């Protein structure tokens, strides 16, 4: 099983993460290949954690996930109780089986990410698109969740 870190959707940035990856880049440059794989903390902790962006518009949420080199059929998107789940599996390509591997940094295997949406969405109107290795999910809010404008009349 894959444990997923719970993240409040209100957090905009994860500063430590950036710093950590900066440091990683720095160390990568010093040691180059052999240690680079080990220092990929993200992979060590939880396998493949595709990066996700969540945008909140007036009428809809947009979720973007980086899933390079997948097949459309291998991506699974589900919505349950206001939790959006993206999961899937990237299979190892067998075409280079007899080849000598110089570098193998790309992650192969299962992943799952779950995002709690801060407002209810209309499940039947959710639309997902996969293009250039980026999955874009549009989730329109339910009528009740949309901001309403009420005119105030003053006598």
């Amino acid at each position: 099983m894959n444990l997923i870190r719970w993240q409040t959707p209100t957090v905009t940035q994860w500063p430590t993460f950036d710093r950590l990856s900066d440091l990683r880049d720095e160390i990568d440059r010093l040691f180059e290949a052999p240690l680079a794989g080990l220092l990929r903390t993200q992979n060590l902790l939880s396998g493949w954690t595709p990066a996700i962006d969540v945008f909140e518009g007036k009428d809809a949420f947009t979720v973007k996930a980086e899933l390079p080199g997948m097949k459309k059929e291998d991506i699974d998107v589900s919505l349950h109780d206001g939790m959006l789940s993206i999961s899937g599996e990237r299979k190892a390509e067998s075409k280079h089986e007899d080849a000598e591997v110089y570098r193998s940094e790309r992650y192969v295997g299962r992943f799952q990410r779950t995002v709690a949406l801060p407002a209810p969405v209309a499940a039947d109107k959710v639309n997902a698109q996969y293009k250039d290795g980026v999955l874009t999910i549009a989730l329109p809010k339910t009528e009740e969740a949309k901001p309403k404008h009420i005119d105030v009349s003053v006598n």
Partner: protein
Amino acid sequence: MKTTVQKEPTRNVEREVADFVAPVVNIFEVKDGYVLEAEMPGVNKDGLEITLEGNEITITGHRNRETPEGEAIFRERHAADYRRVFELDPAVDTARISAKVNQGVLTLTLPKSEQVKPRKIAVLD
């Protein structure tokens, strides 16, 4: 005493430090060359730039920066473009390097030149 302090004119050289992230890659050596796969989600054919200088190949991927409507409430994706430089095996025939991109994965095919390819020599009787 007169001291003239001659100041070195401080050069205001702004180093052009463009912010790039290195894409993760797989590199294989196959019978007749090398295959390099680089993950660059968000980059399509038009955003790719591959340059060859001497025996160094630079791959640069410019992201398609369309931001959806609204305010970002959660952000993990890097905004910087991708760049990584590789030193090529001198055996690579640089004239025949080919590249394609599919769902954010760039595949570079780097064939070896004919002279260095392993060749079978028939033994005559």
